Each structure stands twice: as C-alpha cells, then as structure tokens.
C-alpha cells in the first residue's frame, strides 16, 4: 500500500484531501439529528403548548394567545416562586463567592505556601458530586423534628430548650435550602477561581513584589480586577443553575411551608402533574424560564466565544 501511495502525484493527493470536507456534515449529523428530535422539537412543542389551553385530560387545546403569559404575571404563586428562586440563589451565592474568593486567595498565596491543597480541594468539592436527591433526604433527616440529630445537638449544647420544627418555619426552611446550595457549590467555585488566578500573567505579580506590595494588596489590586471575567462566568453559570433548582426543595418540603421554597421548577412540575394538570400554564412558565436563561446564556456565549477565538 505504502509504495503505491508514494507514486500518487502531489496534486491528486491534495485534491483528495480537499474532497473530504463534506465529511464534516456526516460527522456532525448525528449530533444535530438528536438535537433536533430531543431538544429543538420539544422546545417548539413547549412554545406551542404555551399558547393553547390544555389542562386536565384534554389532549388538544384551543389557541388563546398570550393569556397564559398574562395569567402568570398576576398569579401570586408564580411570582412567589420567581421571588423564591432568586432569593434562594442570592442568599447562597453571596457567601459562596465570598468564601470561594477567600479560599482561592489562600490557595494561590505564594507567601503562605499551604500544604495539602489537593486534599482540601477534593474535600471541599466532595458534596457537589453526591446526588442532590440524597443530599435533600440527608438534610431532611438531620433536621428532623423532634429528635433529629440537629435538634439533639442544639438541645445538648443548650441553644434550644425544646425541639424546633425547622420545616414548619419559612425562614429556617429557606435557610436550609440556601445552605445546601452553598455547601454543594463553594468548593467548585473556589477551584474555578483558583484556576483563574493561576492563569494570570506571573510577571504582573513579580512586578508587584518588586514594588513591595503585600500579598493582600496584590490580591486586591491585581488579582481581583483581572478575575472579573471569570467571576462573571461563575456568577452566570451559577444563576442559570439556580434558576433550575428543583431536587432540593422538592424533596425537602415540596415547596412548603406556605410556599416558602416553591421554585420556578417545582412550580412548573406541580402545574403539569398535580391538581388541574395545567400543562399549558406550565409550558408558559417554562417559556419565561427559557427566555431568562437564553438572555443569561447569551452573555456566557459571547464570553466563551471571545475567549475561545482569542485562543484559536
């Protein structure tokens, strides 16, 4: 074979290689077929459902224009769910990014030279890999009333005199949900931020050291400003993830007490499955969520595109 190929004129070789370009289509075809069937079509279908009035046992509906959308804007549970979703995200994200920045600062501090970084990173990231459903049930049992482990501890150390029913308190339930999110994600965020810091041009730091800057000063004046893009990335990915929050509130209290942890996804799920099975209302709520996510995705998209095109 090899001997024959050497006899092929160079020009023909090139032509042959150029010809192969159409294979690009074959290679990406399966992806786009699956995408069309399981992603694009369901999205269009969702859009269609949002403009009709399917509920209950109806399989077909009538076109009702924007009614589902305007209904949602005046529906207190949908508004409450939107508010809860954002609130739970904000309350978990602020401490999360704060702690992650602090950890990243320590991990990359050349003066501290902390040992066992690999170990600590692994440990901090650990809760993230555990099934969210399991995590929810774990916290459900830990905060059990009246004799769950947390109640037992708090009574032992004298914080509580009588057991406290955490899941009948809106404040406590929200705090627990936000804490779980924080706890599952701060490790991941700190690792991403650490990687971000390490990718910053070393010469900047060297110059700073020569100028006699302290570690904290270099962090504030050099690292933080240069970390802005990656922080934005973390913020938006976290927000997109936060908008989909479902497993934890669903399994912890199913949105209760008094809808205090009802999120957009638990609302959508509830509308589609429970009660009047208002599929079209659920679809309209999904469309709102979709629009919100697309806007956020667009930001990320331009961020990644610029970055990958710089690299390419």
């Amino acid at each position: 074979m090899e001997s024959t190929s050497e006899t092929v004129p160079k020009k023909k070789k090139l032509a042959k290689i150029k010809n192969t370009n159409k294979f690009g289509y074959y290679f990406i075809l399966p992806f786009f077929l699956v995408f069309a069937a399981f992603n694009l079509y369901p999205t269009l279908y969702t859009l269609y459902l949002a403009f009709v009035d399917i509920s209950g046992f109806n399989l077909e509906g009538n076109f009702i224009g924007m009614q589902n959308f305007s209904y949602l804007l005046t529906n207190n549970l949908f508004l409450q769910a939107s508010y809860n979703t954002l609130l739970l995200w904000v309350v978990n994200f602020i401490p999360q990014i704060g702690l992650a920045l602090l950890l990243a600062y320590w991990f990359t501090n050349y003066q501290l030279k902390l040992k066992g970084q690999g170990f600590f990173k692994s440990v901090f990231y650990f809760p993230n890999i555990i099934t969210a459903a399991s995590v929810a049930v774990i916290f459900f049992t830990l905060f059990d009333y009246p004799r769950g482990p947390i109640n037992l501890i708090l009574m032992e150390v004298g914080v509580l005199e009588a057991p406290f029913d955490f899941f009948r308190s809106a404040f406590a339930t929200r705090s627990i949900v936000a804490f779980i999110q924080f706890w599952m994600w701060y490790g991941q965020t700190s690792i991403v931020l650490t990687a971000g810091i390490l990718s910053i041009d070393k010469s900047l730091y060297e110059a700073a050291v020569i100028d006699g800057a302290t570690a904290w000063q270099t962090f504030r004046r050099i690292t933080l400003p240069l970390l802005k893009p990656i922080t934005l990335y973390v913020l938006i990915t976290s927000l997109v993830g936060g908008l989909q929050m479902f497993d934890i509130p669903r399994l912890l209290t199913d949105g209760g007490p008094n809808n205090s942890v009802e999120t957009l996804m638990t609302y959508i799920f509830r509308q589609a499955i429970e009660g009047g099975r208002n599929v079209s209302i659920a679809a309209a709520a999904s469309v709102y969520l979709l629009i919100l996510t697309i806007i956020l995705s667009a930001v990320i998209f331009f961020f990644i595109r610029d970055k990958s095109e710089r690299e390419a």
Partner: protein
Amino acid sequence: MIKKKFGMTLGILSTLALLSSCGNEGAVGTDGGDDTLVVWSFTDEIEQIIEEYYLEDYDDLAYDIDIVQFPTEEFERILDPLIGTGDEPDVILMEQNFAKKYVDSGYLADLEQFEGLREGSEETYDYVKEVGTHEDGTLVANAWQAAPGAFFYRYSLAEEYLGVSEPEEVQELMSDWDGFVETARVIREESDGDVYMIASVDDLRFAFLGGREQGWVVDDELVIDDLAYDLLDTALTMNEEGLMLDAPASGAAYFAGMSNDEIFGYSLPTWGLNFWLEPNGGEATAGDWRMTQGPSTYFRGGTWIGIADSSEMKEEAAHLIEYATTSQDFLERWANDTGDIVSNEEVVEEVSGDYSNDFLGGQNHYAAFADMIDDIEAGFVTEFDQTINDLFMDHALTPYSKGEVDLDTAIQNFRQSVANLFPYIEVGLD
C-alpha cells in the same frame, strides 16, 4: 461504502434504543395483548378477590388477568397521562379521593349496558352508586365495599375516666361536636393529662368533612362549608387545650397510640378496623375496643372499579366487575372472611344477623355499621378531592390548628392555593 459505515454508527443509537426497550419486558404495560385483561389498582385487595375467589369460581377463562399495582400516592400520576389516549388499562380501580375525577372524565364505559351489572347493582347502596355515577347519570363505576365511618374507643379508659363504658352511653356523651370536645376535656382532667381524646387531626378531618352536603367545588366555585370552619375551630381548640396528641396522621406515634394507653379513641371507617386497629392494637388492647357512631355520619375511602371506554375487552371486564361488586355469593363469603362491610344491602343484612367481633369485645359492629349506611350522603365527593383535601390540610388546617396563622390568613391561603392549581375555579378572593 462510507455511508454504509455511517449507517452502522447510527446503528449504535438504535441498538442502544433496542437494548433499553428490551428491559421493558415485565414493565408497566397497558397493552397486554388480545387475551389479557389488564387491571390497574392501588390496593392489593383486588388481587385477593381475583385470585382467591374469582379464578376459583371461573377457572376456565379464555384469557389472562394481569393485575398491576401502584402505590396510592403515585396512582393518579401514572394513570392521568394515559386517559384519553386509548392506552388505558382495561379495568381501573379508584379510591374515593380520586374516583370522581375518572368517573366524570367521560372515558369510562357505561356499566348498565351489561345486564348482569345493571340488575346486580340494584342492591348496591345508593351512596356507593352515587360516587360511581357520571354527571349525566350513567353508572360507570361500582364498589364491593361500603366504608361508613365511626368512632372506636377504649372500653377500659371510658370506664376509668368517664364512668360509663357501653357504646350507647358513650355515644350519648358525644352525639355532637360540643359533647365530643367536652368529653375530651373530662378525659384530660380525669387522667391528669395522660390520655388524649384522639391522636391526630385526621380523626376530626374525615368526620367533619365527610358530613358536608356540598363538595369543595360546585359549578366551578369553591365552597367552604360551615363544617370546614367548625373543623378548623375544633382542631385549634383541641390543640390549645392539649386534647389531642397532634401526631402526624398514619405516622408512628399515631399507630403507637393504638397499643399504649395514651389515646382514648380513633375516628375510623370499616376498613380502619381490619387494616389499622387490629394489627397495631395487637394483643395489648384486643377486646378492649368498642365502636360507636360518634358525632357525625360520614364515610371514608372505598374502592370503585370501572372499565376504560377504550378497552376491547369490555365484556370480560364487566364479568369481573359484576362478580366483585354484585355477586351475592361472593360478597357474603368476602364479608365473612374479612369482616369488610360490603356494598350490597341484602348481603349486609344477611351477615349482620349474628355477627360478633372479638377485637371489639364481642360487639356486633356489623349491625351497627349497617345502620349507619342509610344516613350516608355522598354528595360532597368531587373530582377535586384528592388535591383540595391536601391543600386544605397544608394551607389551612395544619397551620391554623398549630396556631401559626389566624383564621383569615388560613382561609385566604387555602383559597389562593386552590386558585393556583385550578385557575378556572372561582375561589372567592377579592
């Protein structure tokens, strides 16, 4: 050539698809083939009825019966997406809480088109048929059971704290809700707070709500009956004065009260005796229980059976339903074997003649139950019950009875929660 290989690659997709559908065998199927009657249930009683009675009497059926059982709380979620698609199972079992939803859906077959069922159901109690009747008047579901509710109490505790013990005497004390609460106070006082009248709000809830004349929704309007308000007040009072344990219904503490001396009594229907009281009471309290009407006439639970209109085995399905719900021979055996109150008036009268229950200290509860059935009204049963009952619990009864919210807030939250899941219902919010 290359295209062929591509086909092969894509073949991986379909192979995997095939692989995953292979696992489908033995999975939930509504289409059991031409000669299989598919029965979906949430209770294992139907399995007992079919296997131990029906198939004994009819061992030469030309088709198989496939019984698929789901947990009650998952049943609707599994069945709902199939209704109207033609993929429904042939025979559908329905619990009181969601029976009306399917009965009124229009996707169940008329049972009276089958002569045997039409004639047999004449002896079925009216309230049972009322639940199984479509809004247009056709009977589409029937039941083998009647489930009147009563109050079961501890004979020895009544003797000790109330000074009376026989059902008639106890009934006199609690013939209305004021008397019920007053009795609870006496028990609390006499026992120095050791004994609670009841274990949970469920002991009030069904008795109150089961006495309503109107359901939650009438003509697409939410109706909050006075009895619902009474229920809220009674539950709050009993909690505030420590008259009930307020254990989560069907939880550990709830059942534990059946064997220790902490709980005076339980509001339970017929099946509550066989399924809950006897197994959980055990030897500790066997023979020490008695049954009385309590402050209200109500029924709780029950299992209705219907045929999907899309079924191609309606005759076969009707044959089974006729047997299970109207065969006097079967119902009499079933009543004697299980102690269940059956839905057939003649059989109940027949059985109740000389019945005596050891767990109830020899009381003839069958006769007592039989007397109650005539007073039962089923007008309050609606297609919304499963959901709205839960919403009432979560948004009104539980928070209000625990003193977390005031009455206006509780009612407002409840109305709002109904509106959220049923946008077309007028809930009466401003």
